[in-house]
């Protein structure tokens, strides 16, 4: 083995082994588990019993037999897409603002963006229970406005709205950071050039800033969309009984119903969906980024 190859293995080897042992193998175990039969008291039934291999594709048949599962998947997708969209909407102006403030304020502002990570995730989500709760000032204000228009009082907490609010809140920094990293690299002269060539403020934003920031938008979207798809804590805490997402469904199979094979099946379906959307996003990205 040459020196370079040895070095390469020493550098890449440990993380590679780690990923194989703790990611690839468990994923394969999960695939195997999805074809097995649940044990009587949860877990898995023995693989070999009564003189035959105990394998069956019936969890997959079950998944497609009841539309409710497809519906939960679609709803999760919708929540993830909506969360991603709202995150872009909120993070973009913020990231742009950070690139435009004097250099010495930038680091402080970035620190403020990531500061929430310093406190526990669950505590931050629980805080929203108080903010959105029926005794909260926000709820009172919303209902006063609703009342003024002759509408029935609405509950903010334990609703899809609360779930999306919580999701956006938790994932916003993951959108701000890649956007900022991208926008910060833009050559301000390009905006001068565009203006000089006749572009008004909107055209300068759309044709130059936005177009050039697409790699950042894609990166941020991936960092928000994918985790939101699997997130169960936020819907658990802020959602109502009807606001179950994929994450909750999977968690329920393993910890509640103790139907490991079906839980595995759901996990695999989720992984496939994420891979499919990632592939789609990459195709889109490659088309627009090929030459950026």
């Amino acid at each position, binding site marked *: 083995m040459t020196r370079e190859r040895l070095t390469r293995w020493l550098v890449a080897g440990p993380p590679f082994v780690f990923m194989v042992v703790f990611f690839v193998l468990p994923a394969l175990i999960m695939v195997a588990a999805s074809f097995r039969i649940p044990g009587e008291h949860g877990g898995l039934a023995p693989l070999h019993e009564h003189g035959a291999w105990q394998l069956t594709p019936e969890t997959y048949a079950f998944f497609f037999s009841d539309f409710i599962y497809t519906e939960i998947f679609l709803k999760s997708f919708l929540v993830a897409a909506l969360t991603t969209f709202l995150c872009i909407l909120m993070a973009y102006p913020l990231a742009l603002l950070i690139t435009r403030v004097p250099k010495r304020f930038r680091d402080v502002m970035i620190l403020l963006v990531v500061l929430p990570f310093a406190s526990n995730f669950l505590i931050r989500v629980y805080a929203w229970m108080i903010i959105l709760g029926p005794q909260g000032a926000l709820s009172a204000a919303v209902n006063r406005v609703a009342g003024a228009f002759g509408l029935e009082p609405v509950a903010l907490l334990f609703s899809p709205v609360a779930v999306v609010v919580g999701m956006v809140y938790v994932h916003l920094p993951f959108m701000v950071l890649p956007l900022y990293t991208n926008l910060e690299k833009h050559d301000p002269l390009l905006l001068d050039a*565009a203006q*000089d*060539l006749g572009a008004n403020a909107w055209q300068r934003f759309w044709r130059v800033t936005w177009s050039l920031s697409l790699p950042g938008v894609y990166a941020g979207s991936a960092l928000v969309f994918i985790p939101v798809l699997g997130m169960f804590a936020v819907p658990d805490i802020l959602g109502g009984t009807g606001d179950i997402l994929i994450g909750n469904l999977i968690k329920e199979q393993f910890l509640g119903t103790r139907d490991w094979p079906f839980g595995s099946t759901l996990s695999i379906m989720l992984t496939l969906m994420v891979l499919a959307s990632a592939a789609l996003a990459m195709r889109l990205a490659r088309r627009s980024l090929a030459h950026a």
Partner: protein
Amino acid sequence: MALLELRHLTRRFGGIAAVDDVSLGIEAGEFFTLLGPSGCGKTTILRMVAGFDLPDGGAILLDGHSLADIPPEKRPLHTVFQSYALFPHLSVADNVGFPLRMARVPAAEARRRVADMLDTVHLADKADAYPHELSGGQKQRVALARGLVGKPRLLLLDEPLGALDHKLRSAMQSELIALQRNVGITFIFVTHSQPEALALSHRIAVMNAGRIEQLGTPAEIYGHPRNRFVADFIGDINLFDAEIVERAQGTLQFAVAGLGHIVAPTVDSPGRRGVFAIRPEQVHIIAADAPTELPNRFPGTLREFLYVGDVTTYQVELDSGVRIQALLPNAAPARPQLAAGARVAVAWAGDAGLFLHD
């Protein structure tokens, strides 16, 4: 009426006038150059004309109308930036087509004009390439095409050749002259490179410390610099403090520091103090003992020479201790074989050189 007129244009940064009461007129179809060292205010003028900076005083008039209230995107002029500022996410054709798109030119017409323009700058085969795939010279031509395709009244060029290597720069200079003649668009060119300014321009404004020192054709500026700054900035020149002593034989006798008395042309009267300036190519080097009809002749020692291929520059230390530079073409048949330390004499004609006021 001039196409573009600057009237008492002034711009201050923190109390210092970067542009100080500049007035000039640029005619339609002209290749006009603002030339000066960095910080002389030439780029500030360009930015104010483009609309990226606003004057503190004075006015900029295009066709007699003030540009004061017109934002950059509405001014009928385009800029070619030193770093090109091509849009990295757009193809060459889309970069060139950008101003047409902004002006809502119909797509078919825009395509035709972009194709024509790319033809003009010899980039027809690069229409689908992206800026990062182009060489420096090609990027430069895309930037020019993008600036010209919208048929602006004026094209502002901010040191556009600064980033190119020497050979490419000479090639681009010739192209630029041809291009400007073909499209008939008025160019305002900003540079700190005096050979570039001399080669390209119809007229040059030499600037220093926010003011115009001299405005004229390249030949006027080079042959008749108005003061010490212009003489020193444009080309190589020998400068000596001098005083006019007397008028004799149709020319004037000068007392020149370190030279003694010389004969040189001037319109000034005796008693006047100033600078005697003479170009190196006007100074001849002859053998130390050779006879000459030239009235100004001084013996000295050759100290250094700089061979640059076509010409050689010689530094001669006169016996008085003063140094003078002479330039001889290497093709000259009578070129003396000279080595450092050789005894020589320098000589020049009585009508060579200039007397300048400080």
